[in-house]
């Protein structure tokens, strides 16, 4: 998913968005993310995760963004871990509802 270790805890029922300073570049394996503020690079190692991340801002919560992207219940823990890692590296941030 993402290369960074995922710290426990990510609020799937919270509303999230991509940080304004993050640039996404789709790749055949998923996407590259670059944060101009922290100057850090991250990887999305699946096209589905890219769809999830792009959908975050339009969906009421992360759980819905995952469902809309076709993530099944069995896969949800992996996606939750990947989103947690992205939140820890400030690629995505909570938004007020």
């Amino acid at each position, binding site marked *: 998913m993402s290369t960074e270790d995922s710290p426990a805890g990510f609020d799937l029922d919270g509303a999230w968005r991509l940080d304004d300073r993050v640039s996404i*570049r789709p790749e055949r*394996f998923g996407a590259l993310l670059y944060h*101009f503020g922290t100057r850090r690079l991250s990887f999305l190692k699946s096209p589905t995760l890219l769809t999830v991340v792009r959908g975050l801002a339009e969906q009421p919560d992360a759980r819905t963004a995952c469902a809309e992207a076709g993530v099944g219940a069995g896969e949800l823990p992996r996606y939750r871990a990947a989103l947690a890692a992205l939140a820890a590296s400030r690629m995505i941030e909570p938004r007020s509802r």
Partner: protein
Amino acid sequence: MSLVDEFQYGLDAPICLTWELTYACNLSCVHCLSSSGRRDPRELSTVECKALIDEFERMQVFYVNIGGGEPTVRPDFWELVDYATEHHVGVKFSTNGVKITPEVARRLAGSDYVDVQISLDGATAEVNDHVRGPGSYDTAIRAMRHLADAGFENFKISVVMTRHNVGQLGEFKAIADRYGAQLRITRLRPSGRGADTWDELHPTAAQQRALYDWLVAHGENVLTGDSFFHLAGYGEGDLPGLNLCGAGRVVCLVDPVGDVYACPFAIHDTFLAGNVRGGGGFTSVWRESELFTSLRSPQSGGACESCSAFDACRGGCMAAKFFTGLPLDGPDPECVRGHGELALAGVTSVPKPSLDHSHRRRPVPVTIGMRRPPDRACDENPLAGFRR
């Protein structure tokens, strides 16, 4: 496929690239990768540079590492930095600090999209100036003070690891902490003028081991540009980073005249992929050049493939091998298992540099007083005094 595999086979656009804007430099560092000094008259013009930035934007290159030479001596330097950031291409630039005045520092502190690396190769003036020239330590420290005073947080202090400064890691860290900067250390390469000084400057085997241990212990807070992947061969702790040679696969170098090389350490015809002034621009060099296509195909590790460390170090650095006269499918000259040292013993010739923009004479401080009187009246012949 793992990410490392994905990267080995290359991306449609580099993640980042090094762009040396000029070969002109006020210094003459003895290990300069690009043998810089004098400006090349064929340097890309402002208009050509902007067109190249447009191309980077279209390819979604996240950022460019601008270097030189000393890039800030180009009169259009700030114009190009502004143009890049306005076009969503981030800029990290390396400088010896000569143009970082308080005004410039304040301006830099105001942008998220510009990062600064101050080169410093000794934690003391004595060690630094031996490599970078008299006064260069003070220039760098003054630039750091201006950046810190302007509130620029986390600029980088960029150190090339040598035999003389590898024992100063703690002191470098202290300097970085003092100015609110982040330490970045990179490997000395036998490239450019570094070919002439590598024997004297490259860390000893024992120093390499100490450096590895230090990186494993402190590496999370220190940047390395992944440049020590040959040390992954020690294999006893996780070296942070992907530890992959990205040359021609995820990174490359554009030089001041628009020549595209596989990496910043490989300025030689052997690693020249094309020129951005060609019909297809940078994009076609990146995507279609013969050299880059071949670098993206599986590489032979030669004798190294039977070594248990091969999966970790992948045979080390292509440029380091090339410029020390070693075969590309053999061990790195600084192979942690000692295979490089053995191989070096058998080297009979090393490649000649393709380019040299060094100052014709090393700059010397102006001395006032008498020149040495000629031995004889006709002693102005350059060969006078030459003894067989």
